[in-house]
């Protein structure tokens, strides 16, 4: 199984908006590889007859009727927000662009 490179770990950290120092990268990259190896051992157990699964129960089409249910009040919605202004969530300056 190919090893996760230091650059890949740095890229993943970037995507996750985690700022890692060089020392932390040196420390964490090998650890991540150990985790991946452990998880990979599952592949040895799963035979060709086991399809990749995204949900443990084989069911489909669980739908909801298009009927309005009560929403939260703005006070409730914002109660856990570190900062709010004009009934909106206040977030720090956004670096980068919209997705």
């Amino acid at each position, binding site marked *: 199984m190919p090893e996760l490179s230091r650059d890949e770990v740095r890229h993943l950290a970037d*995507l*996750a*908006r985690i700022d890692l120092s060089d020392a932390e990268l040196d420390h964490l990259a090998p650890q991540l590889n150990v985790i991946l190896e452990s998880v990979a051992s599952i592949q040895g157990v799963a035979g060709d007859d086991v399809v990749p699964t*995204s*949900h443990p*129960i084989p*069911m*489909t*089409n*669980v*739908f*909801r*009727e*298009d*009927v*309005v*249910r009560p*929403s*939260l*009040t*703005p006070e409730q*919605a*914002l109660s*856990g927000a570190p*900062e709010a*202004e*004009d*009934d*909106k*969530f*206040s*977030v*720090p*300056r*956004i670096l*980068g*662009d*919209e*997705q």
Partner: protein
Amino acid sequence: MADTLIDFDEVVATYDPALGLEVHVELNTNTKMFCGCPTTFGGEPNTQVCPTCLGLPGAMPVVNAKAVEAAIRIGLALNCDIAEWCRFARKNYFYPDMPKNFQTSQYDEPICFEGYLDVDVEGETFRVEIERAHMEEDTGKSTHIGGATGRIQGADHSLVDYNRAGIPLIEIVTKPILGAGEKAPLVARAYVAQLRDLIVALGVSDARMDQGSIRADVNLSLSPKGSGVLGTRTETKNVNSLRSVERAVRFEMSRHAAVLDAGGSILQETRHFHEADGTTSSGRPKSDAEDYRYFPEPDLVPVAPSREWVEELRGTLPENPTAKRARLQEEWGFSDLEMRDTVGAGALSLVEETVAAGASPQSARKWWLSDLARRANDAGVELAEVGVTPEQVAGVQRLVDAKTINDKLARQVFDGLIAGEGTPEEIVAARGLAVVSDDGALSAAVDKAIETNPDVADKIRDGKVAAAGALIGAVMKEMRGQADAGRVRELILEKLA
């Protein structure tokens, strides 16, 4: 720094454009994609949110059946196959407009795939191949504070309203559209216009580009003419009117050509479109799909629409747009050119509704394509958003037919309608616009015109009837336009017989 541009004619002489369009349609379901919060536009901030659409821990999404139904109907109307089994996926990215830190979307298993839409461009039919139409959710709305005029650059902090987060979206993606050449800007515009008409006919969205319920992303690349090799593309995001779609394609073609001509290469990136001057500016480098680390959404079970359901929904589809255009042209007795202009102006359904409200097809066409089209163009809005409804146009035409007003006064009635002064009748009364057909007042004005223009009067007496125009003009001026020109002519000729 202003971009260097190449004249459009030169661009198409040297390069082949490849277009791709991604259109997001916001559905008009009562509730959001995965929760029961209402979807009404324009609510007070954060009044249409719940633990699910705020991404609070432990909240579980459940799919809105009506949104799946709308997705399937859109797919069928676009001649797509409908997946027998498909899943939602998480698109992972960190941006405050998605409180969950992922958008629930579909990745490699879209609900609709492999379709097409036949688009009319200046009388030619152009087949636009559809790659996929998939279900996803809209994001929240950010307001940037502290920078210049709401721009993200230089902002100090941002405020987020999540009312829109979780509203069902259908994203419709075309395959690369090749071979459009110089018509590429028109093909892009016609595709979005006719897709919008289809969405309106399906009744699945408000389809208001000005309110963002239909948004287009325009992908464009150029390749040296005849090379057949696709160039590097840019993606201009959130182009929000038909006119802008056309302008964005035109601008990007000229900009790409200038970069390529100078020996440079196009950066694969997203671009922002600027309504004011029709230009685009650099956004962010386009992320690779793998950076979104898509994986199947474990909180939702697969969607497997039964073939019976799909066929039942096929039965609810509106008339095929191409067949419908042919039928309307026949019913209205329009020439090919008249029909093409009507479709090109985005006036087809407006004329249809105006005719349904009682106006003759020719009068409906006349108002929408001349006076109202000019106003829409001046205001930089779509015809449908000019501020006059088809019913009102039919009402104005009724007043013209009844000779209460003439065409010139009708324009003033439109002024009043756009200013929200009431019904056509109320505006005529309030503004005192009714045509004067009282012969007493007209007669006096005619006498005055004859008196002040003796030379003209003499010519008419000598049988030069064509000279009457000058006197009619004088009388109309005297009556401030509120006279029946035909009656004025009769009076002049009677008096000078």
